[in-house]
């Protein structure tokens, strides 16, 4: 697209609309800036326009990554329409004439083979299995000793679209805003405080040579609730753990929630939640796959509050458990552990991956110690559960 080619305002506006439909936040300001750039600089290539419009249109890293593709799709549709990505070896292209010749050659070859077999009169059974042998040859896919099983992070059931993750983060942001802040015993200076901060008032007065008394005020410091997520990744939760872990990741990114997974004992995976790479996704999938030989919910909770000094449980702590409630420990043990947490002021919410609340004996015994039992069998139910959560 040359410099002499006009960039009609209508097309630029249409591009803005196209971006908006693609999830970008494009308003009149951005569209005006697009036009200002075009008028300010004689642009000779589409690449230049793309470079200069990108900082105006993109407001997040996700926008940044999607930008080039969207830009080319709108301004150079012929370059993007109908193209496919291929991997591995591809067959050389052939024209119609070559195809006809090849078909003829194939026909003649098969007829020759048939004549040969009939002429020899042989009825060797192996002749009939000649094609079977070729069929039994290992396919190109399985050659080279590579596993024919896709990597875990390539499985469709484990893959999440960026829009899904975005929705989860938006949901987490909404919950974070609703979470109440609790007053601590500590004080902080604030002009809106109602209690006089004697020490600071005197210090300030001393700095003014005792000439004047400027009152300094303080109020109780408010701190956000500390969220701890405990995800069951045992075999019975294999199909649901992905949702729980993605949810945990969203809450970690938005409000720094600490994330643990457990099967027989709890393991902290908060650090893994910080990074967004295929390797991390692989690891997250790995912890959700293939566990068996029982689930120890009560033992895991005890290990969390007894053997992990870094995890403090108090009235500012909110514990969310993602589990189906099947515990191999004695059924009353879970209730005891949750009672211990309740006594410390911890509020416990339980997200279960089924439509009905867990019916296991352990879950039934612990039902009084859990603030809310919430269904989370899919994103819709999780969303409605979180939105209805009482704070």
């Amino acid at each position: 697209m040359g410099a002499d080619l006009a960039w009609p305002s209508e097309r630029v506006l249409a591009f803005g609309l196209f971006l908006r439909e693609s999830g970008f936040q494009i308003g009149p300001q951005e569209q005006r800036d697009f036009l200002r750039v075009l008028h300010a600089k004689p642009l000779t290539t589409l690449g230049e326009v793309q470079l200069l419009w990108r900082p105006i249109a993109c407001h997040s890293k996700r926008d940044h990554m999607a930008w080039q593709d969207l830009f080319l799709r709108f301004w150079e549709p012929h370059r993007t329409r109908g193209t496919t990505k291929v991997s591995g070896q591809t067959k050389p292209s052939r024209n119609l004439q070559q195809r006809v010749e090849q078909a003829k050659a194939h026909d003649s070859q098969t007829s020759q083979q048939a004549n040969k077999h009939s002429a020899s009169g042989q009825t060797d059974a192996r002749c009939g299995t000649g094609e079977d042998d070729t069929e039994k040859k290992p396919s190109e896919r399985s050659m080279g000793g590579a596993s024919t099983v896709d990597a875990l992070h390539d499985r469709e059931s484990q893959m999440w679209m960026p829009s899904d993750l975005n929705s989860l983060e938006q949901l987490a942001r909404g919950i974070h805003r609703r979470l109440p802040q609790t007053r601590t015993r500590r004080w902080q200076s604030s002009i809106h405080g109602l209690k006089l901060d004697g020490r600071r008032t005197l210090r300030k007065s001393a700095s003014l040579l005792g000439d004047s008394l400027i009152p300094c005020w303080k109020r109780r410091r408010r701190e956000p609730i500390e969220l701890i997520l405990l995800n069951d990744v045992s075999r019975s939760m294999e199909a649901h753990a992905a949702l729980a872990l993605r949810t945990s990741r969203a809450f970690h990114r938005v409000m720094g929630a600490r994330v643990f997974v457990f099967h027989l004992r709890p393991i902290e995976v908060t650090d893994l939640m910080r990074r967004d790479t295929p390797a991390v996704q692989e690891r997250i999938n790995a912890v959700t796959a293939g566990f068996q030989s029982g689930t120890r919910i009560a033992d895991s909770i005890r290990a969390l509050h007894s053997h992990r000094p870094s995890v403090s449980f108090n009235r500012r702590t909110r514990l969310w458990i993602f589990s189906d409630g099947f515990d191999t420990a004695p059924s009353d043990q879970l209730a005891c552990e949750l009672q211990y947490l309740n006594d410390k002021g911890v509020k416990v919410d339980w997200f279960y991956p089924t439509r009905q609340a867990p019916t296991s004996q352990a879950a039934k015994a612990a039902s009084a110690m859990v603030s809310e039992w919430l269904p989370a069998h899919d994103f819709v139910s999780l969303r409605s559960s979180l939105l209805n959560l009482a704070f």
Partner: protein
Amino acid sequence: MNAPSPQMAGSTIGLLREDLARAGYFADESLASVVWLAEHLERPILLEGEAGVGKTALAAALSKTLNRPLIRLQCFEGLDLADAAYEWNVARQLMAIRLKPEATEANLYTRDYLLAKPLLAAITQPEGAVLLIDEVDRADEAFEAYLLEVLSEFQMSIPELGTLHANVVPRVILTSNGTRSLSDALRRRCLFHVVEYPDPFRERCILQASLPDADIRLVESVVTVVQGLRNEDLQKRPGLAESLDWLRALHHCGHKELPDDFTQIHQTLSCLLKTREDRFAFGPDSYRQLQERYGR
């Protein structure tokens, strides 16, 4: 600010890159375009990226290039107006009352008694300034909301004085490490750019310019290893600052090229790997594998 003329604008981005390079900052074309746009549209730049990729350094280089003072505001949790914008000089006001008992309130709340903190200082700088608001994601949301007026209108409202406008629009650079998501309102007021790790060629140029005495073989080896490490699954991937530190350390140890013996470089690895887990994961075997994989 006057917009650059169309004749000049064609080569402005290229010239800007050269100017920044002279100031010791090797910007790629996309980043130079953002800086050019910021100047033309009078908009702040919001730079996001991993720690140590050169976000803060851009402000310093821009300050040198434009020959304007660099005013830095380091954000942290609990940053308030008195630290960031302005504060009344109460001691001076009291002294004025003593010296002139007839002084009225209007006389006491004037520019003379105003202590300018970074935001106000940047706006009132007569020759303009480069304002760096570093790690804005560490500040509270309330402060972020206060920034909106400053960044969109380049003005500041002081109840006792009125609204102060910038005579010369400051070049504003905000940096964020992404520890907290910033509000859409702030993002929309800025030109957004993600600063990625530099490619091997640019990293080599930066290292050579920063440490011209270092042997070229050492520089190339350091770039190769650091680029390789960035593809590994590390908790904290080494940035440009880390590779520069590592090069300096190796250079001071008298190495002309990267030694094959891991024990010799082990002492200097603290410049490169910043977490215990990464140090543990990167042993002699990993080093050897990295060398083999990236062709040393």
